[in-house]
């Protein structure tokens, strides 16, 4: 399984990511998910979220998750970009792409990866008013 992980303080460049997409003939499903900063946390309006990461551990935990993904589903590739630093409302903080032979495993793997990321990958949010 090909894997590409990017933790960056730069805006997520969706056009560049899409142009770099690589899918082999046997693959029938490409899905991607974009997580966007909402304008409210609970009932309070915010202007941005500041993301803090324990970078070395983030990389380690994501690669453990990718290892597990590879065991569970026949995924050809996963690419994931997560922002750190200040991300304004309406800007994406997370971009995930999964390429697989069929949509079922692609959706399942992507959902699982994001759920697990929120459980074990050491990134924290701080809302900015």
């Amino acid at each position, binding site marked *: 399984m090909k894997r590409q992980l990017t933790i960056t303080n730069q805006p997520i460049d969706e056009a560049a990511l899409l142009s770099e997409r690589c899918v082999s003939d046997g693959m029938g499903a490409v899905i991607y998910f974009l997580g966007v900063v909402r304008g409210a946390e609970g009932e309070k309006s915010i202007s941005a979220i500041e*993301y*803090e990461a324990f970078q070395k*551990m983030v990389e380690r*935990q994501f690669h453990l998750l990718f290892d597990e993904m590879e065991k569970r589903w026949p995924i050809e590739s996963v690419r994931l970009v997560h922002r750190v630093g200040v991300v304004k409302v309406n800007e994406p903080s997370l971009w995930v792409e999964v390429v697989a032979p069929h949509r079922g495993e692609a959706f399942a793997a992507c959902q699982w990866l994001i759920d697990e990321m929120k*459980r074990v990958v*050491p*990134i*924290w*949010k701080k809302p900015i008013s």
Partner: protein
Amino acid sequence: MRVSVQFYSYFKDLTGCAQTEESAAEGSTLADFLKKLFERFPGLAAMERSMLVAVGVDYQPRGYVLKDGDEVSLFPPVQGG
């Protein structure tokens, strides 16, 4: 032995620092070590149940036996995405 400790997210506010060092007796477990840290940083004690603990870049259970040079990281539940 000396063990370095890093705090993340609002644990830095609770302790007033991002990192520190603490001594630990040979054979100390993470649980022993945390007890000692809670005496020094009482604000952390209330977070004990939800606190996540890593040594290096891996999560470790409270029974993990510390080794000289270990880097312990303490932080609240993660919130990526």
